[in-house]
């Protein structure tokens, strides 16, 4: 088979067609890129181009088949709605607190009509858009740009505080639904903005919808419908991916049924079962343990584990990737072994 470009490879795997080799991508990777570059995450985002050049340099070095446009800041847009942001020296920005303190009073007052202008007025969101534009300019049509932003369910949990949000779903379901409706619009608006600035693939991440936190019943009642609504609100995107951290094997069939193109599953998911449940209608990407051999093992161990996953996929639609965001300390040589395993998979 002739050598494919990154885009051709991704198009083929998502269409269930044969590929010249297993595609490879990172899930985010921003914290790792900053550390490997020898700078802090804060410095990366503070660069004139929002870190675009550095991100493209490393993803080109690793020959990843897609590039993360706003790596590691998936809940940061909520800063525009009052969630304080704490940026670690090494790790990625994380929300340091909730936006809502009196759920009963504040949720009914959330105003969907001002979401876009509120986002655009936020400095961090502007940085994200700048980075996205910068990457698009550098990458052009060589690779797809993927935008990783929190899914509506996770955004709701961040705005209210996860524990309070869970209790809200039990005690005040109508208010919880109202909050999710609002965050669905926020998530959609961020994705609209990313698309306008060069992003090609919508990639909502839903860590709070993990099978380690909520039951499949609760997932289908709350998180899945919100994700489906989000997908409907983003017709401009050719591809719509999804990520759930931790044990999310039970989610595969549900995601397949709402038309997700690729599901990034974590290491705790049995890959063979996930691929079976995807039925060739949805690609699976993952699911190297980012805190296992990838972080602490030797390159040959990483290669063996990656090769094992490619063999498990056995030609089914599969993209090799870490199961979740990589640790900042992951050795470069280990990450390179992922690409080598893909290249040797021909």
């Amino acid at each position, binding site marked *: 088979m002739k050598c494919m470009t990154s885009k051709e490879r991704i198009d083929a795997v998502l269409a269930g067609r044969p590929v010249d080799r297993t595609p490879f991508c990172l899930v985010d990777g921003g*914290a790792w890129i900053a550390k490997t570059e020898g700078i802090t995450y804060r410095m990366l985002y503070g660069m004139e181009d929002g870190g675009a050049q550095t991100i493209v340099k490393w993803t080109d070095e690793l020959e990843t088949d897609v590039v993360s446009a706003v790596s590691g800041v998936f809940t940061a847009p909520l800063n525009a709605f009052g969630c304080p942001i*704490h940026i*670690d*020296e*090494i*790790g*990625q920005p*994380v*929300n*340091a607190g909730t936006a809502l303190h009196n759920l009963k009073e504040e949720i009914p007052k959330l105003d969907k009509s001002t979401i876009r202008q509120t986002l655009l007025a936020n400095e961090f969101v502007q940085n994200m858009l700048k980075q996205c534009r910068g990457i698009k300019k550098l990458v052009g049509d060589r690779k797809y740009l993927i935008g990783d932003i929190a899914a509506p369910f996770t955004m709701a949990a961040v705005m209210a505080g*996860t*524990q309070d949000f*869970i*209790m809200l*779903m*039990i005690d005040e379901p109508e208010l919880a639904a109202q909050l999710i409706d609002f965050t669905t619009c926020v998530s959609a608006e961020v994705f609209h903005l990313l698309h306008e600035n060069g992003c090609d693939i919508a990639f909502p991440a839903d860590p709070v919808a993990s099978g*380690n*936190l*909520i*039951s499949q019943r*609760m997932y289908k009642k709350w998180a899945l419908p919100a994700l489906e609504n989000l997908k409907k609100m983003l017709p401009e995107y050719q591809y719509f991916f999804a990520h759930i*951290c*931790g044990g999310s094997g039970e989610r595969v069939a549900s995601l397949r049924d709402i038309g997700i193109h690729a599901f990034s599953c974590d290491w705790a998911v049995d890959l063979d079962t996930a691929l079976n449940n995807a039925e060739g209608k949805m690609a699976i990407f993952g699911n190297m343990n*980012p*805190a*296992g051999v990838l*972080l*602490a093992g030797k390159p040959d161990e990483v290669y063996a584990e990656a090769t094992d996953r490619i063999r498990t996929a056995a030609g089914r639609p599969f993209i090799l990737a870490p199961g979740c*965001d*990589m*640790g*900042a*300390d*992951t050795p470069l040589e280990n990450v390179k072994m992922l690409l080598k395993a893909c290249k040797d998979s021909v």
Partner: protein
Amino acid sequence: MDFTELREAILDGSAKQVSAIVTSALEKGELPEKILSEGLIKGMDEVGELFSNNEIYVPEVLISVRAMKTGLEILKPQLALRDIKPVGVAVIGTVKDDLHDIGKNLVAMMLEGTGFEVIDAGVNVSAEQFLSLAKEHNAKIVCMSALLTTTMSYMKEVIEAFKADGYRDKVKIMVGGAPLSQKFADEIGADAYTSDAASAAKRALELLNE
């Protein structure tokens, strides 16, 4: 008195029922420590078991904990009058630069449900804070949580700080969090790693007796 009904009320997460049963048991002259151990703690043990087996999830645990706490608040003054002490003191926190708290909160709740007095240091906790709280409260258990691969390595620094201060053998140090493993816990010299909140509470009790 049979405490089955109380245990079931905890499993159902019914704070109202727990409150009624505990109040009625006290009125009938039942010892508060017995209501605590046979009702509330055993009820939470069952909740923990179901959680460990993936039969229930975090929301169900949270409503059970809320019900348990309602009962505990009623019992507290009675326990104090009878000078009943907690089984031990545990200091818990999410390590420096990590602001995730739900896992840490769940472990704290399960520890309380097992009879511990819990000193919750919150999130973004430094080695110095862990050490000073352990000393101040004479804690026998120190629990550290991390959700990020970028922050888990700080756990080793905390353990080193306890060693440098000569306080390491005064406490048992437990670690937990999504990216952690037993291998990692062994490498950094922790005394225990558990994969979920219920197992953490059980293991903490065992460590007290080691």
